[in-house]
């Protein structure tokens, strides 16, 4: 699939009036997250988490920088900072993740004798589809409703981590940070010169040229 916003990199706006110092500090810290660093997950959990993140958000190979999703989740779990609510049927955030990662590994092992991260791509997706539908067989799911865990914890945490990262903003053509400079052109099909240009069929190079000037 061709890129919708060829050549657009939201980070090129870093030194523009769209970013202030507070934002630069916050985003710099996010970009500096070491994708291999974890201190909440043990080794087995970490391997499972990374493999799951790659299935839920298969980041395009040309992405640079890649969003260190697993490390962002590990960081959130280690901090203990929650979302402000917990479904009574689910354990607390950290416990839910530990139990869920172990249960996904156990579910994988039921059929193949392998842990989740050792499965092939399609097998991994098959396991995740079962979890999403709640069609699980392993006793490791006791006390953790699979469907609910998948929707409210696993998907929620992985996907919000990804879309908190500039790599995803470039991909979807989001303008990114906008302070002090906001936007001027509000109507249909209008873009400010500091917004991503969308590739129109047959005019991809035009968009790429425009995107080189975004800053």
């Amino acid at each position, binding site marked *: *699939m061709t890129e919708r916003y060829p050549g657009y990199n939201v980070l090129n706006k870093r030194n523009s009036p*769209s*970013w*202030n110092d*507070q*934002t630069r*500090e*916050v*985003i710099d810290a996010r970009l500096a997250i070491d994708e291999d660093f974890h201190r909440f997950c043990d080794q087995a959990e970490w391997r499972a988490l990374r493999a799951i993140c790659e*299935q*839920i*958000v*298969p980041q395009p190979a040309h992405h640079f920088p890649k969003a260190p999703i697993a490390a962002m989740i590990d960081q959130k779990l280690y901090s203990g*900072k*929650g*979302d*402000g*609510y*917990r*479904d*009574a*049927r689910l354990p*607390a955030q950290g416990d839910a993740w530990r139990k869920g990662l172990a249960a996904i590994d156990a579910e994988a092992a039921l059929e193949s004798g392998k842990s989740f991260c050792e499965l092939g791509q399609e097998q991994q*997706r098959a396991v*995740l589809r079962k979890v*999403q539908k709640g069609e699980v067989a392993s006793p490791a799911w006791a006390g953790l409703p699979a469907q609910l865990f998948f*929707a*409210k914890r696993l*998907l*929620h945490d*992985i*996907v*919000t981590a*990804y*879309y*908190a990262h500039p790599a995803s*903003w470039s*991909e*979807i*053509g*989001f*303008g990114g*940070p*906008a*302070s*002090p*400079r*906001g*936007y*001027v*052109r*509000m*109507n*249909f*099909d*209008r*873009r400010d010169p500091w*917004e*991503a240009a*969308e590739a129109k069929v047959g005019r991809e190079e035009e968009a790429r040229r425009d995107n080189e000037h975004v800053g």
Partner: protein
Amino acid sequence: MREYREDQPVDFAIVGTGAGGGTLACKLAEYGFSVVAFDAGPYWRPLEDFASDEMHQSKLYWTDERIVDGENPLQLGSNNSGKSVGGSTVHFAMVSLRFRPEWFKSLSILGYGADWPIDWREMWDYYAEVEQTLKVSGPINYPWGPKRPRYPYRAHELNAAALVLAEGAEALGIGWTATPLATLSAPRGLAHPCVYRGMCVIGCSTNAKQSVLVTWLPRALEAGAEIRDLAMVGSIEHDSRGLVTGVHYLREGRWRFQKARNVVVAGYSIETPRLLLNSASGKFPQGLANSSGLVGKNLMVQANQAVWGISDREIRSYKGPPSLAITEHWNYSDEGKDFHGGYSYMSQGPLPMLWGATQSSKRGLWGQALLDEMEKYNHQVGLKIVGETLPQERNCVTLTDERDQYGLRIPRVTHSYSDNDKRLIAHSLRFMRQALQATGARDIWDETDDTCHLNGTARMGFDRKSSVVNADCRSWDIPNLWICDGSVFPTVGGVNPSLTIQAIACRTADRIRAMARRGELITT
């Protein structure tokens, strides 16, 4: 800022500084009372403290643990609570609407819910006061309801997402308007107009947003009120006569006590009942102000369902305030409804994290399907309701045995839709789908399980058996204990509640001043 001693009673200790508590703190201080207002969150300086970043700005939300259950467990945190001085107005979407007049007597006029002990004509004047204070920008003529003054500031320019709402409404032959918004469309003092950065719900970094933080609270400080931030009130103390004497609060690592002649609880629909219930004592074993047994009951959400679709045109809904256009047609028209109550719907502008969560957690997308759908971000367009739900006693806030970081029992929030609520939601989804289709949008889908604002749990009413406070927000049981926030609402209507909460606070301040002059306050 003036500071008060803990060991000398202030006239009013107010717990919470949002739409209810912050407004009341200002008005009471201006009327000459000594006031200390507590907030569990920090006193932000938006120009210095706010980044343009969804994840970072979650620091504005109340993210302490709460348990949710019932048939339709709520999502709390980001969209319906704040832990900041200024409360959730620091991250609200600024939508500033008046109630439909009949809603104040919905039981006797419209046949559902409960009547308010306040007349709409009195509220109409208080609404005008709040709109002036916030310099609400809005249309010259509002299409629904009785006459109201022209909005203080001109309406904002519409973004493409709002123009889609207008197209749909016109195709179906209903009215629409630019949404009255509490963000500046022209300079005011040192603040410049809104720059349409579109990040309103994660905190305005330019102070164009007219939140409680930048409107009522500077006036409160000017008038001699103290705002005590990072102060979590854990319980309210009372004496042997059953009058309250002050509040216990945790600040800088230790529990302290502030003496007060009156205590006002303004913690919103979860923290308000939680504090009253956590203050149970030998004299009041069911919690304070709770002889009716209604503290924590009749929690009402507003339904927040949406239809989403894809436009061939570039929408880029991240630009500008998220809800620039609205229709209140189904708040004011009762024709052909198979349900009680009403709803408004507005244009939308979700930021990427929220949009990702919507596509995954709500719609179930992941893998390449998720990335493909997310890539259409700049073409997505949606309509979302603020829908009235009916009061039900089974929807409630109670205490669990688990304790939080303060050592306080954490709340359990139980919520299930009624059959009437479900009919309202179904009606709105059908109607909005037609409206969106009429604009040429494709691939339309329903987001069926979202809710927004909370109200109720300490309702006002006509007598001590069927309500917690009277029309003046004074508790029936304890004459120097008051409740002033969204929890006093007997019904919610189909509009965002912040303007009404502020109007109630203005009225409460006027009533307190009148009672003080007549010697009807408790003097200890």
